[in-house]
């Protein structure tokens, strides 16, 4: 049952401090880059404040926030893909930018690259979103369905097929995947 902390009447600094780390954590699991996760999480809260009154109370505010995060990341993914295509056409080479990262960012990037989340990011977008919400945010299938805008059965299927594909990766070779399927 949703508590008043889950359904605040107005956005407040205390509520932001409470839920921001969870949104940021999901953003980092999806992207692996702390600065991109910062941008995504902050954008999520700006959109949430802008659309605060349009919340229909079918879920908790946190699930609603995750939904905004997913849509924001899709938007970013699409614009990056467009930019990549343009750059590739222009430069005729791999346009990966050579940026110098600070040490904490490099550390976070390396940790993400060595984690299972870098493998999750290689899955299809719907599968990656469902697995992130399930295992990085501990959301139920019902909440995942609400956040990504699909039926609950579809959310389950996406997690199931995503996990099946992850079974082939080195990091999950020894893991018992059946415990994650429930």
């Amino acid at each position, binding site marked *: 049952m949703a508590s008043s902390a889950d359904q605040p009447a107005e956005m*407040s600094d205390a509520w932001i401090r409470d839920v921001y780390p969870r949104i940021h954590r999901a953003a980092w699991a999806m992207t692996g880059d702390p600065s991109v996760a910062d941008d995504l*999480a902050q954008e999520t809260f700006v959109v949430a404040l802008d659309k605060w009154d349009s919340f229909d109370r079918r879920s908790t505010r946190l699930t609603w926030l995750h939904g905004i995060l997913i849509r924001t990341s899709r938007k970013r993914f699409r614009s990056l893909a467009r930019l990549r295509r343009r750059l590739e056409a222009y430069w005729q080479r791999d346009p990966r930018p050579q940026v110098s990262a600070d040490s904490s960012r490099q550390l976070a990037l390396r940790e993400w690259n060595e984690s299972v989340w870098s493998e999750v990011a290689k899955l299809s977008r719907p599968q990656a979103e469902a697995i992130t919400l399930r295992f990085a945010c501990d959301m139920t299938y019902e909440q995942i369905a609400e956040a990504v805008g699909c039926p609950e059965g579809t959310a389950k299927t996406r997690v199931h097929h995503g996990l099946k594909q992850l079974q082939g990766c080195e990091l999950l070779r020894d893991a018992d995947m059946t415990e994650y399927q429930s």
Partner: protein
Amino acid sequence: MSKDPFALNAPDATAPQLSALRASVRSRRKRRYTRNGGILFAVVLGLFSVQQFSTEPPLTVDHSVATHRQKSVQLETETDSGPFPHAVDQPPFRLFAEVNATLPVFTFDEERDEMVPLGWVQASDVMPVDLGNLSAEQTALFESVLHNDPKPQFISL
């Protein structure tokens, strides 16, 4: 006990202040309104440009030359006997009217012997508007306007 492969050591996150979020929303809304206003203005301008050079009068307006002439003569007669001696010998005329809507503006092209559209007038613009086919009530109103206006504007076509 095996390590959870999905375990995440997420980097520290500094939550934004509500005041900063509010400032972002304000600036975003301002940009949105400016952009939408610009688009609306461009559409209106585009419509105006298109209509200005169109030679086809709108189908909903009856501006046949015969009606126009007949009404012009009638108005001439009525104003002739009214308080506007300067209206004598000014047969077809146009009124500078203040309109509160988008209206088509016509003029009579003598060479082509037909009414041709000039364009559209927008709300509160003061433009020459051909009143065209007037009813008896409209004619009465028109004459009262002329009577009360110290500077009735007449233009010969």
